[in-house]
Structure formats: structure tokens, C-alpha cells
């Protein structure tokens, strides 16, 4: 179901956690609320869930105003960062809980509950653990059970608070892919909170970038990466080199291929893969020194140092495929020419 938030504001004491948030999430999307810690993303998720109440604004789920509904009546499924499984219940009972607490009239029969719980456990591939207790499971298993438990009540919206935050790196990678596939199969509108931009880009179909209680940008991962709407988004998503024209030598940038004559702003952000390097021919005065490099799997990250006029040295990072770098036959300390292919300009 679609979600519409209008003018949501929330203060904790004098601290404005959320300030006039307007957000529309179309049906069936898998949305990431992305931002640094303290940006209000978890608060926003909890307000959508009804676990927290907004000071101002309305929450609409599939067109219905749910602002004054309790969390138990919003028809949402919530997955907590630390799983929040009922520790005194078996896995089966955890998943069955949402069905068992339904009013007598709505409650399915024991046989239907049994079938439904086993179906859900099969969906998360953990039916073989149905009689275990939560403390006998690994973190990844617990998180999948928590997801099955949330799905048992057939929520119209699935909300996940840092779902992979407490997991090991390897498990996290697997679960991300798994969540993406699961969402593809179930197609239930889902929102998850994360501070990890890589995770947001990898899993979500839509990313909402938050900072200081504001929405900075909303869009598909490629939108946000290719067309960041401001400096914050550009810096927060992926790696970027920041060239401040007031501090940098404009001539140098001109030589590097960044036209400064009709500049489109005060600051240029350049992605590392938008920098091309080549071995320097001696008469070029725009050279930089190759300081070091690191292997990032299939890519190489190259650290270049440029001595500026006032004696300070600033590092510039470039990235290129492994084999391409090998062909350049560069060594540490070599003079290198650098060309900027593309930049984002900000004021």
C-alpha cells in the first residue's frame, strides 16, 4: 500500500528530530531511509509504525489517515534492529503470536495457524528450527524469524529498523540479497532504515536521504548517485573529491579539464572514476604525484598528491579497473597527468 506523510514534525525537548517532512511512497516499493546517525530516520520509521507519535503532521497508509491509530491497529509489520523475538517462546510460537492474539472472531483455527506458520518458516527457509528458542539461533536466523513473525499478520506495510545492523559482514551481504528477492516475490511496500549507503543502493528501489531532520533527496539509487541534488548527498553517497574553487588553483583545474571560465558553482565534486590519469610528459605543469594505491577487488584506488602554491598538499583519489592500471606501468612517486571527465557543481 502507498504511504503518504505530510508535514511530519517531531521534537525531543528542544531538539528538532524531524522538521516538516513530506514524503510519498508508492505501492510496492522497497524504500531505504538513509542518513547519518541522529538524522531522524529511525524516528520517522517509528512514527509511520505508530510506535512514536508526531508533534505535527499526518500519516496516511493507502489513503487512510492512520495518524490517530495505535500501532496495533495500523496493519504494519515491524522488524527491530535487535530482533525483539519473544525469548520465552519457541520459534513457532513467535511466528504464531500475531495470529493467536487476534480477536476470537478473526482468529484462524489452530490447523490454519499451524499451516500458515510452517509456510512462513519455509519462506524464510528455517522451518527446521521451529521448536528452538531464540537464544539458540544465530543473528541472521533470528532476523529472518523476526521477519516471518512480522509477515504472519499480512501487514500492508513492512517496516524494518536497521535490519542488518547487528549482523556480521558476510551474513549481512547474504541477507540483503535475500530481502531484495523476498520483496520481489511478496511485493509488499517496505521501508528500511540504514546508515550504510552501500546497503541502501544495493537493496532499495527508492532511496530517501535524510539529514538533520530534513529530506535531502528522494529517488532511485542511480538518480541519487548520478544527480545528487546537493553537496551533502554527493558526499554521503559514494566517494567524491571536493574541489573548492576559492581554495584551489583555477588554472590547474582548467588544465585538468575542468572548465572554470563559465563555472556552474563554487564547489566541484568529482567521483574517483571520473578522473583519468596518464604518465606525465615533462612539459606539462598540471602534474600530480602518485603517492599510493589500494586494491578494492576489481578496482584500484589511487591516491594522488598535488602540491599547491601555498605549500599545502591535498590528496585526490582516482579509481580505475585493475588491468587498466597495470597497463599504465606506474610506480610510486611518478609524475602523473590527470583529467577530470565530469563534475557536479554546487553553490
Amino acid at each position, binding site marked *: 500500500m502507498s504511504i503518504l506523510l505530510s508535514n511530519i514534525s517531531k521534537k525531543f525537548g528542544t531538539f528538532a528530530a524531524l522538521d516538516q517532512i513530506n514524503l510519498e511512497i508508492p505501492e510496492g516499493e522497497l524504500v531505504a531511509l538513509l542518513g547519518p546517525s541522529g538524522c531522524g530516520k529511525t524516528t520517522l520509521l517509528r512514527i509511520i*509504525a505508530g510506535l512514536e507519535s508526531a508533534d505535527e503532521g499526518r500519516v496516511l497508509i493507502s489513503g487512510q489517515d492512520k495518524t490517530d491509530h495505535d*500501532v496495533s*491497529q495500523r496493519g504494519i509489520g515491524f522488524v*527491530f534492529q535487535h530482533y525483539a523475538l*519473544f525469548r*520465552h517462546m519457541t520459534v513457532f510460537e513467535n511466528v504464531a503470536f*500475531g495470529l493467536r*492474539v487476534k480477536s476470537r472472531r478473526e482468529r484462524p483455527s489452530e490447523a490454519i495457524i499451524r499451516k500458515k506458520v510452517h509456510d512462513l518458516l519455509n519462506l524464510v527457509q528455517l522451518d527446521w528450527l521451529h521448536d528452538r528458542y531464540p537464544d539458540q539461533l544465530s543473528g541472521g536466523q533470528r532476523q529472518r524469524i523476526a521477519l516471518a513473525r512480522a509477515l*504472519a499478520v499480512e501487514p500492508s506495510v513492512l517496516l524494518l529498523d536497521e535490519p542488518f545492523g547487528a549482523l556480521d559482514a558476510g551474513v549481512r551481504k547474504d541477507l540483503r540479497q535475500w530481502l531484495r528477492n523476498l520483496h520481489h516475490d511478496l511485493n509488499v511496500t517496505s521501508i528500511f532504515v540504514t546508515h550504510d549507503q552501500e546497503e541502501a543502493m544495493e537493496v532499495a528501489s527508492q532511496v530517501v536521504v535524510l539529514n538533520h531532520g530534513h529530506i535531502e533527496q528522494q529517488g532511485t539509487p542511480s538518480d541519487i548517485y548520478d544527480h545528487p541534488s546537493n553537496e551533502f548527498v554527493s558526499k554521503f553517497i559514494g566517494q567524491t573529491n571536493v574541489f573548492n574553487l576559492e581554495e584551489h588553483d583555477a588554472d590547474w583545474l582548467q588544465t585538468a579539464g575542468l572548465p572554470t571560465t563559465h563555472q556552474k558553482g563554487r564547489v566541484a565534486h568529482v567521483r574517483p572514476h571520473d578522473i583519468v590519469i596518464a604518465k606525465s610528459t615533462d612539459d606539462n605543469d598540471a602534474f600530480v604525484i602518485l603517492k599510493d594505491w589500494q586494491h578494492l577487488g576489481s578496482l584500484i584506488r589511487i591516491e594522488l598528491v598535488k602540491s599547491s602554491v601555498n605549500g599545502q598538499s591535498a590528496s585526490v583519489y582516482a579509481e580505475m579497473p585493475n588491468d587498466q592500471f597495470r597497463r599504465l606501468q606506474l610506480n610510486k612517486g611518478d609524475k602523473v597527468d590527470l583529467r577530470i571527465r565530469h563534475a557536479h557543481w554546487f553553490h
Partner: protein
Amino acid sequence: MSAATQPVNPARLFVREQRALQDPNWIKWSLIAIALSFIGLFICLPLGLVIFQAFSKGIATYWSALAQDDTVAAIKLTLLTAIITVPLNTVFGVAAAWAITQFEFPGKSLLTTLIDLPFSVSPVISGFIFVLLFGAQGWFGEWLNAHDVKIIFAVPGIVLATLFITFPFVARQLIPLMQEMGNQEEEAALSLGASGWKTFWAVTIPNIKWALLYGVLLCNARAMGEFGAVSVVSGHIRGVTNTLPLHVEVNYNDYDVVGAFAGASILAALAIVTLILKTALEWRQANR
């Protein structure tokens, strides 16, 4: 793999581990000796003496001391006090712990501190508070007198004083546990459609039941054993307002040694039963 099935390295059996923090043997054994003799001298010996004195003139005398009307009345009053105060304080304790751990409200830290007040105030003072409030010269004294309600030197005063003294036990057991557990399980239950009431019974109570039982046990032991506060408000009327601890004192002051120690033996037995149950509960919690 459990420890029992792990192969034992035979060399380890003969090599005494010399750890940096290991004290010489003579220190170890003298500390143990001091601790044991202290317990023996100040706890086991008096307890044994109570039993010995109670039975010093034979079992028949012991039973007849217990069967005295005043003793039976004291036992009944003690049980009545416990039956009223323990359930009330269980409810109060759970409510206070719930309020403190689940909600944010002004005065929360004050409430947390005040819960401990009965622990930090001398029981005699606690008793006097009630005398000042409800006694003949107290704030409500005249009004109570006019309406012929007796609180001080009567059962209601004893119950009130005991209620005050034993208030912290349940809350004190629950608050740290509930703080540590947080409220995410409750939130999860609510998000799954459970009502607050259902969440409390299906999620909260199962999680706190052992700590709750433990608190109730300690609360009960104190309710039955309280002397100071009850002594002030009771008036020591034989057969009417004497609880078991007061009854013991009265008998002792009257040189009725067997009567005093017979009563004391019941209190001692209560203490031992409490200790056994407490240990069982602790064992149960540790082995969960």
C-alpha cells in the same frame, strides 16, 4: 560440546597452575577459616541455640507454648498481615517498575529514589510516621476518633506499617531486570496487534516471573519478620495486636524462655524455608 565430554589433558592434572593472582595457600585457608568461623559463631550457633532453647523443656512444653491462645493469635495476625500486604505490594511493585521502565515522565528519578526510602529509613521512624498521622494526637487523630476508626494500636496500623516497610522489595527486583530487557518485545507484541493487557500477560509477565517470585518471597519474609515499625504502632496488646516477632519479645521480657524461643523457632523456620526457596529460584534463573 559439553565440558564433561571434553578429553582431559593428563598433564594438566599434575601441574599446579601458578597464576599471577593466586595467593599463597596459608592466606587462602586462613580467609576461609575466618569466614566459616564467623558464620558459625554469629549465624549457625544462635540459630541452633534458638532450636535448643525452644525444646529445652521437652517437646510437650514446646507444643503447649505454641498452642497458647496468645501464640496462636500472634501467628494468625502475622499471617493476616502477610496475606494483605504481600499481594498489594506485588501489584504496587509491578506497577511502579512498569511505570519507571516503560514511560518517560517528570519526577521519574524522584520516584526511583523514593521507592528506596523504606530501606534507608530506620523502621522505628517509619512506625512513628503512622503514629504522627493516625495517632490520638496525630493529624487525622481527631477525625478518626470521631468516626470511631482505630488505626494505631490496632490491626490496620500494623498492616500499614508493614506495607510501608516491604514496599521496595518487589519493585527493586523488577526495575533492573526490566531496564536491561528494554521494551522492544512489548513494542513487537503491540505491532503484531496485541492489546496492552495481552502484551503484559503474554510477554512481560513470562519474562519477569522469576524475578517477581523472588521479590515476593523477600517481601513475604520481611512482612512476617518486621519488628521495629510494627512495634511502634501495635501497642503490644497480647492476643490482639501482637505479631509473632512482638510476641517473642513480650514472652522473653516475661522470662517465658520456652514461649519466646518456640515463637522464635517458627520465625527461624520461616527464614530457612525462605533461604531454600531463594536459592532454588537463583539456581533456576542461572540454569535457564
